[in-house]
C-alpha cells in the first residue's frame, strides 16, 4: 500500500474538497514557505470558491492570498499571526468576513474542543515516507520542530502531507504518525530554509536595547525566581536575546541549573542548553538553523505540540510551569494591556502567537520595549488592540524606567524587591509622561467602524476587535 499521489491537484480532488470548506496550514517554514501558495494556486486552478484558510501564521511570503481573496477562492482567513503585507490589505477592507486571530495555544485547543473545524489539513513536511509518517528534523528543507502541525493532523477530516524529501517507509524518528494521513504528495521544493530565520533573531548592539536588556536581567535576578529549577521563555527580538545572554551569564557565574527553556528556539537558547543552564528545551518551532540542527542531534532538545506548549484543552500545558517569559509590545496601556497585533497607525503587522498564552501561564511576565519608537511613545492611554490582558502582565521594562503592575492586587513584594535592587522603578503613567515630554503627544489614529478582525483569547472568548483604517 502507498498513499502517494502524483500532484497537489490530485490530492485535492481525492480528499473531496468542496466549496465553503476550511483548509489548514502550519508555518514552520515561516517566511520561506512555498506550500500555502502552491496549494491555493492548485485549488484556484481547479475552480474552487469560498474557502476558509486556517494557517497558524500568515507571512509576507503569502501575499498571493490577497489575489485569491479578490477572486473569491478564499473568503475567510484564520491565523495566530499575520505579517504586514497581508495585514495592510485586511485593514484597508479587503475581506467581507473578519479575520479570526487565535493564539498558539487557543488554535489547537479550539480544534480539539470542536469549536474550530478543519476539513483538509495540508502539512509541509521536510521529510516523509509514502505512508505519511513525517518530520521536520531531516531533509534539505529541514525546519526542526513541527509543533503547530500536530493538532491539524490529529483533528482535520482529511490530511495531505506535502514533502520534498520522500524516503522509504518506515521513516525513522518521525514526528507526525501515518495514522492521521490520507495522502502524500512529492514536490520539488516545499520552501526555502533561509526564510526560517526571522529578521530579528540577532542580539542587539543598539545601546538602548542593551540598557533594556541589562535592566530586564536584573529584574529577573531580583525577582527571586532565578534559582535551580528555573524555567524561561524569550522571543526572538534583539533586546530579549540580549537579556537571555545576560541571564546565561548570571546562571553560569552562580552555577544555577535551570529546568527548561521554551518557545520559538534560537541558537542562544541552544547555547544555554549546551552550557548546562537547562535540563531540556521544549521546542514548538525553530527560529534559526542552529536550533534545527540541535533538535535533530540533541535528545534534550525536544519537540512539543502546540497543545503541550500552550493549549487549554490538555490537562496541563508547559506554559503553566513557566517562571519567566520575556515578551515584546508595540503598545502598552495604562492598565498594562499589550498590543502586538497592530502598529501605531492601526495596521495589522503581527499577532498574539504565544504572547497571551505565556503571559497567562508565567509567574513573571515581562514586557521589554523602548520608551519611544520613531517618535511614538510605547505607553498609551488605551491600546489600539488588546492582544494580552493587563491582568496577566507583571512588569514593563524600558531604558528609562521599569513599571511594576500592582493594579490587580499583586506584585507588591516584587516592586519592593526591585527598588531594593536599586532598579529605576516608576509608575506606568510616568513612562507615558516621560515619553510625551520628549516626543510630544501623538494625535489619536482615526479608525472606521468596520470590523476587519476578531481577536480571540486562548479560551475561545472574544478579547477585542480590529477596525479598518480610514
Amino acid at each position: 500500500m502507498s498513499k502517494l499521489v502524483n500532484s497537489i491537484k490530485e490530492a485535492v480532488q481525492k480528499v473531496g474538497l468542496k466549496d465553503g470548506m476550511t483548509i489548514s496550514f502550519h508555518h514552520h517554514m515561516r517566511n520561506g514557505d512555498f506550500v500555502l501558495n502552491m496549494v491555493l494556486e492548485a485549488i484556484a486552478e481547479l475552480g474552487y470558491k469560498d474557502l476558509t484558510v486556517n494557517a497558524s501564521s500568515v507571512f509576507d511570503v503569502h501575499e498571493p492570498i490577497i489575489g485569491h481573496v479578490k477572486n473569491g477562492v478564499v473568503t475567510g482567513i484564520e491565523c495566530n499571526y499575520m505579517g504586514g503585507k497581508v495585514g495592510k490589505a485586511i485593514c484597508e477592507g479587503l475581506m467581507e468576513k473578519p479575520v479570526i486571530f487565535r493564539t498558539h495555544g487557543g488554535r489547537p485547543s479550539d480544534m480539539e474542543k470542536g469549536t474550530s473545524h478543519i476539513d483538509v489539513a495540508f502539512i509541509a513536511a521536510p521529510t516523509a515516507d509514502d505512508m505519511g509518517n513525517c518530520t521536520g528534523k531531516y531533509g534539505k528543507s529541514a525546519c526542526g520542530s513541527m509543533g503547530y502541525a500536530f493538532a491539524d493532523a490529529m483533528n482535520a477530516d482529511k490530511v495531505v502531507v506535502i514533502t520534498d524529501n520522500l524516503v522509504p517507509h518506515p521513516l525513522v524518528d518521525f514526528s507526525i504518525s501515518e495514522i492521521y494521513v490520507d495522502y502524500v504528495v512529492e514536490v520539488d521544493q516545499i520552501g526555502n530554509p533561509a526564510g526560517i530565520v526571522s529578521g530579528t533573531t540577532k542580539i542587539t548592539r543598539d545601546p538602548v536595547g542593551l540598557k533594556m536588556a541589562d535592566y530586564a536581567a536584573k529584574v529577573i535576578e531580583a525577582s527571586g525566581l532565578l534559582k535551580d529549577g528555573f524555567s524561561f521563555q524569550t522571543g526572538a527580538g534583539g533586546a530579549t536575546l540580549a537579556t537571555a545572554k545576560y541571564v546565561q551569564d548570571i546562571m553560569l557565574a552562580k552555577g544555577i541549573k535551570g529546568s527548561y527553556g521554551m518557545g520559538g528556539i534560537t541558537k542562544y537558547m541552544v547555547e544555554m542548553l549546551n552550557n548546562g543552564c537547562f535540563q531540556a528545551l521544549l521546542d514548538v518551532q525553530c527560529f534559526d538553523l542552529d536550533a534545527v540542527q540541535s533538535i535533530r542531534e540533541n535528545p534534550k532538545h525536544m519537540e512539543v505540540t502546540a497543545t503541550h506548549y500552550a493549549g487549554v484543552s490538555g490537562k496541563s500545558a508547559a506554559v503553566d510551569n513557566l517562571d519567566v517569559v520575556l515578551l515584546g509590545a508595540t503598545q502598552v496601556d495604562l492598565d498594562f494591556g499589550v498590543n502586538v497585533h497592530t502598529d501605531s497607525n492601526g495596521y495589522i503587522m503581527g499577532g498574539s502567537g504565544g504572547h497571551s498564552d505565556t503571559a497567562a501561564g508565567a509567574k513573571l511576565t515581562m514586557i521589554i520595549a523602548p520608551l519611544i519608537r520613531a517618535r511614538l511613545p510605547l505607553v498609551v492611554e488605551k491600546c489600539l488592540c488588546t492582544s494580552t490582558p493587563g491582568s496577566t502582565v507583571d512588569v514593563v521594562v524600558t531604558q528609562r524606567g521599569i513599571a511594576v503592575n500592582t493594579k490587580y492586587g499583586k506584585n507588591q513584594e516584587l516592586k519592593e524587591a526591585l527598588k531594593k535592587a536599586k532598579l529605576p522603578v516608576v509608575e506606568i503613567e510616568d513612562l507615558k509622561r516621560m515619553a510625551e515630554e520628549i516626543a510630544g503627544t501623538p494625535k489619536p489614529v482615526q479608525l472606521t467602524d468596520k470590523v476587519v478582525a476578531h481577536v480571540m483569547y486562548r479560551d475561545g472568548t472574544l478579547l477585542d476587535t480590529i477596525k479598518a483604517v480610514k
Partner: protein
Amino acid sequence: MKINTSAVAGTLESSDVYVKVEPCETLEIEIESVVYNQFAEQIEATIKAVLAELGVESGKVSVNDKGAIDCVIQARVETAVKRAGGEK
C-alpha cells in the same frame, strides 16, 4: 538668510529626518513622515519656526521624516538651510 543652492541634511535612519532645501520663489514645505497621522502639524510648526528664526522667506523645504523628535528636526533643518545659504 537666502537659499542660494540646494542642500541636504540628515539620514533616512529610524528616528532621524532627511531634509532637502532648494531655491524657490515662494516658501514651500513638503512633509512625508512615518508618523504623519500623529505629528504632521507639529512637524510643520517646528520647520516654520526654524525658518523664521533664520530669516528664510523663500525656498522649498522637503522632509522625509522617520520619526524624529523636535530637536532633531530643528537641527537638521537649520543645517540644511545653512548649507544652502553658503555657510560652511
